């Protein structure tokens, strides 16, 4: 299976830094398969990432890759896309990267509907720095900075993306890797800002502390807690309980930023009437 996507990896950069049982490798694999399906030219594809365990993904991939500063990946990517709208851009972020320090860039990229494909590796924790709570850590969980349990309410990342204006929002999990690939493919085909939230597991800094068992248990948890949005319609609120939805959660149409900017250029250059 790996053979099909091997060409997209910088094999000399392996082994990767991720812990055994970490979900990030599965999400990265799903992303590589998606790019394979999309058939994008490697030279015309850019992977931008922030800072975190997830963000290390960019270094393992054989595209134009940019490992930026914590939270700012989307802002760097905005500059790249605007500079050359022909490029296919994937933006890899962790949940903290994307919704805490980078929350402002996230909502504004969505509002602009700029054609970037955000893939958010959501493990509900700050993995790289050893397990501090993030904006997506649910209430009543343990983190190194929440020794008495978390009291803050968590973001629903997909809802946030949708309300901010993203024109494609999907959610998958490391367990549902095939679906994740499909979501990333569909997100990339959407001309506008696309968000795919990939539920990943961090056994080292989250699972252990919250008694979620070993990585296999954490993956099982994803399988059991996830409800396909297509099935959710037939379920009662009670049945849904604290489960989460996966699949294409939102899709609509809006003018894409770089295309609209091209109209501005045409108008300013007098190639079309003011």
């Amino acid at each position, binding site marked *: 299976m790996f053979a099909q996507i091997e060409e997209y990896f910088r094999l000399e950069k392996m082994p990767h830094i991720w812990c055994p049982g970490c979900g990030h490798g599965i999400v990265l694999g799903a992303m590589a398969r998606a790019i394979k399906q999309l058939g994008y030219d490697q030279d015309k594809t850019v992977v931008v990432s922030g800072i975190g365990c997830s963000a290390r993904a960019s270094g393992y991939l054989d595209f134009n890759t940019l490992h930026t500063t914590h939270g700012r990946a989307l*802002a760097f990517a905005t500059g790249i896309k*605007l*500079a050359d709208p022909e490029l296919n851009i994937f933006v890899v972020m962790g949940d903290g990267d994307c919704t805490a320090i980078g929350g402002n860039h996230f909502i504004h990229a969505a509002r602009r509907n700029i054609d970037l494909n955000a893939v958010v590796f959501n493990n509900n924790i700050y993995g790289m720095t050893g397990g501090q709570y993030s904006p997506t850590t649910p209430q009543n969980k343990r983190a190194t900075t929440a020794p008495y349990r978390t009291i803050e309410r968590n973001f629903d990342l997909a809802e946030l993306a949708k309300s901010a204006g993203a024109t494609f929002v999907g959610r998958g999990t490391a367990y549902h890797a095939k679906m994740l690939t499909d979501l990333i493919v569909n997100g990339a085909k959407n001309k506008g800002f696309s968000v795919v939230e990939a539920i990943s597991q961090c056994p080292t800094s989250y699972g252990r502390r919250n008694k979620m068992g070993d990585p296999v248990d954490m993956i099982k948890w994803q399988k059991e807690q996830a409800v396909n949005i297509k099935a959710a319609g037939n379920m009662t609120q009670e049945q849904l309980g604290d489960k989460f939805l996966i699949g294409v959660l939102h899709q609509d149409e809006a003018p894409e930023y770089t295309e609209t900017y091209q109209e501005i250029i045409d108008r300013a250059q007098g190639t079309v009437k003011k």
Partner: protein
Amino acid sequence: MTEVKDFGRLMQGNEACAEGALAAGTKFFAGYPITPSTEIAEILAEKLPQVGGKFIQMEDEIGGMAAVIGASLTGLKSITATSGPGFSLKQENLGFAVMAEVPCVVVNVQRGGPSTGVPTSPAQGDVMQARWGTHGDHPIIALTPVSVKETYELTIKAFNLSEKFRTPVILLMDEVIGHMRERVQLPKQGEFEVVERKKPQVGPEQYYPYRDDGTGVPPMASFGEGYRHHVTGLVHDETGFPSNKPEMVKKVLDRLHKKISDHLDEIIMAEETNLEDAEVMIFAYGSVARSAKKAVNILRKNGVKAGLFRPITIWPFPSTKLQEHFNRIKKVVVPEMNMGQLVGEVERAAAGKSIVTPLNRYDGELITPVEIVEKVQEVL
């Protein structure tokens, strides 16, 4: 046919900066509005699309700096403009540009600080922030214009230096220079140098994005050109991939510094007026240098042999140029619109050979020629 005489045009400093950027070939601006720099953004918002360039108002200055770096990595000459509070926000990514060697120009039209301070008053309080604002040991280039015309010229120069040395360059203006209007005759395209970044001369297989080609400045491929490579703010080896080997860390930091310090003759600019026979030197930059020039004239009329040293490049600091004078000139007055920032560097260069006296104003008012004259008379 009667000859049409070119009387030039009335132009504001910020406008000259925007025009200089366009003349240098900029195709990208990203930033966030802040007094007294906003006109630069406003003018480029109008003019960039006319030349096929791109303008974007980002959600904050952090994003502005990030987008500028992204665009530059994609091959566009890129610029952002701000003032004190926004300059602080740009610092983390400014450091990224130093580390990843991404050419770009960062304009700071200084206003009174700290914090929101005095938005509409001139100041020179960010001199040290320009030098040490981002974390870690790093080289930086900062230029300070004295007039509207020079703002135009130095904006072009800032781009040239940034492209040549693959480094961010700071144009440190102040509110007076930014908002002042002067009649200027600008050089025509072709009458000034425009530098483009060095591109790889080898194929993608042989390309190492951070390999020193002997000049200290590695050739730079853009994203999308077929030279797939990795860019990171982590210390990296010549392939661009992270390394924390002590010898690699040292090697990278040494090269980053040396590519600047080995070319000081190309980077350091200063104007020297009446220093040949001077008994007292006034050291002044930016709008204060305008008053200093008048002060020199007044002093000379009164028989005092005064001269002016005006650094145009303040970082790297022009120590060597300055030291040439300290064998002879034993008195130096350093007026600054801050509580004394660059004066420390002058003292360091003087190394006890000359007596250095500061003259500071930090109330949002300009330092007048008379104040400088009085200070000179006091020290003589």
